């Protein structure tokens, strides 16, 4: 009796195409919905900021506190950018 296994190459191709489709869908959704994209970018950027906060605070802050504080700092900068936006395009608010 001979068992037919799917060809490994074909399986990989299908899996890759599914992944690509998912990535493409996330990308198109990300372009459509701005808030999740900005949140994602902020979280990514915080990977750079949080260690800097942690290093600067000495032993005062724990890693999660540094991460939260980094995110709060980014939020404050975002709020300042939003207020600048209000100043330049006030009729939209």
């Amino acid at each position, binding site marked *: 009796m001979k068992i037919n296994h799917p060809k490994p190459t074909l399986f990989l191709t299908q899996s890759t195409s599914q992944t690509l489709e998912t990535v493409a869908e996330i990308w198109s959704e990300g372009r459509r919905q701005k808030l999740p994209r900005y949140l994602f970018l902020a979280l990514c950027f915080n990977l750079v900021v949080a260690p800097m906060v942690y290093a600067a*605070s000495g032993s*005062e*802050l724990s890693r999660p*506190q540094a991460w*939260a*504080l980094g995110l*709060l700092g980014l*939020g*404050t900068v975002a*709020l*300042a950018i*939003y*207020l*600048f936006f*209000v*100043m330049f395009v*006030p*009729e939209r*608010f």
Partner: protein
Amino acid sequence: MKTDSSPSLRSPSGPRDARKHTPKVDRSGLYQRAIRESFVKLDPRIVVRNPVMFVVWLGTLVTLLVTINPSLFGPIQESIGKQRLLNGIITLVLFFTVLFANFAEAVAEGRGKAQADALRSTRSDTVARKILPDGSIQEVNSTELRRGDQVRVVAGDMIPADGEVIQGLGSVDESAITGESAPVLKQPGTDIASSVTGGTRLLSDELTLRITSDPGQGFIDRMIALVEGAERSKTPNEIALTVLLAVLTLVFLIVVATVPSIAHYIAGFLDTALGPDVGNTFRSGSSIAILISLLVALIPTTIGGLLSAIGIAGMDRVAQFNVIATSGRAVEACGDVNTLVLDKTGTITLGNRLADEFIPVNGHTVESMAKVCLAASLFDETPEGRSIVQLAQSLGATLDDLGANGAEGIEFSARTRMSGTDFNGQEYRKGAVDAIKGFVRSRGGQVSPALDQAYEGVSRLGGTPLGVCKDNDIYGVIYLKDIVKPGLKERFDQLRRMGVKTIMLTGDNRITASVIAREAGVDDFIAEATPEDKIDVIRREQSQGKLVAMTGDGTNDAPALAQANVGLAMNSGTQAAKEAANMVDLDSDPTKLIDLVTIGKQLLITRGALTTFSVANDIAKYFAIIPTIFAAAGIGALNIMGLRSAQSAIVSALIYNALIIPALIPLALKGVQFRPLTADQLLQRNILIYGVGGVIAPFIAIKLIDMILPLA
């Protein structure tokens, strides 16, 4: 010799304050709806449109996080329980600050929506009798009617859509939109009386209408959209204030964001200089919840929370006056108006000019002149024309004497400035005396000096003289009497004190115009004005940088209404006038323009007063919070209110900050009491009451709250 007033024209009855919009505005449940709406408005997509409140909203979110986990952003100096309690109270107070601001806006919007609902109740679908091209009648739903369709309406029917009377004569009950119970006569051919509004009811006879608007674009539909605020956009002053609020918020955000760095620097310095842990109070002063409290206390939350409510309430006040403004910009422009261009007839004078006396010349008797006057006015359907007919008939003139079979009417025009009748080969004319002189001369007749004497005599009495002739023979002068509306002189005096110039426009001669102008107390007048003069005078004033307001009702007023910064069209006016204007008066009372200037000024004053109050509040809040949280830096002496602790000071300032918003809602909705003062006097008064008051009131209120609060 007096005559009765014409029944065809209706003027609003009773004093203005006593008049109400007839579709009863149901305001029951307004506050329940507003409370519900204020929670709906917590949606970040809605809050983000109010920059100041969005900052408070974000602050609430962050303080909520530090309530759940007080050490989220760093170690805390107090015990966890105590810190959590403080953070929780701060979160609650900030939440209510946003909620109260939403409530203020929701109440203002709710009043507009209640009015829109009342209007919507008048707009029910009806069955219309549509006239098909072959002349047959088809019953269709009113929503199926399109612009250009013709319909027949009989007594008792609801008028299915906005339209123009092309045939028939009937009285219409317009109380659904104007609040006036007196029916209005509608007939074709006249600029004013031929337009009808969908939703009103025909009380008598039968009318054939040409529909002038597609479904959903009728007058009531537009009114609903406007009072609901669906088309509300920011006014220039609101935009300027939004920028100011954003700048202030940004400045305080930067200040507060840099406080922790400075506090830590000073705390480290104190530790080194005075011993370990001395700077701890400084460190606790820069906890996230306290920093957010400081930020919220410093940013202008009062005006940020009330700004849109003030604007909406301004529109609502205009609507309560039975005036529909197309935008808040128009209402605001009313407050900035420098020049009012007013028609004499109907605006400054009562408008129902009636023939009071016939003054014969050239040896004619009053009786013979009455016959000529009757003949010249046979086709004149204006109130003046009818009053001439009545006066002539009261003097014994009858149509039978004339034998006017086959007579042809000559319509009045701005060019000829006269009207009349032709029959039996004879030309009967009445009109401006100059025009009559020209007509008589063109027919080879002579003009006697007695005519000029009669003309001047009538003019000096403030009346309008109308010349009357038959062919080349002048018969005399008709004295049309008009009366200046009572109380107008005082109103014009008030406007003058506010720096508003009034210009009266009239087709009358210079003598009459000057008499009326002096009697009414207007600043300037233009006599023998043509419709083109209206637009010229507006352009001239605007070229000097002034804002001009005017009223109008006819199609020939439309260009001037569009050119003016504030154009108030009468509801009884033509569709063209209503579309060109940025306001429509449902009562068709041109004098209301003066009230609108008052409302516009009141709107601007209210906004200015509350902004002054809001910014002045900062001083007390600053003195409440800063000295207590940074007392270790030796600034405890600045705690002039003697607040018990840092926690109590912060919470007291925030509670005051939240409570002042609902406390000022009545003032924002009702508006600051208007006083006819100059701009400088108003500024001084505002600074004294709302500036100094805004500094003192929070000192007292924060101290009282601090005494009541159980926080040690």
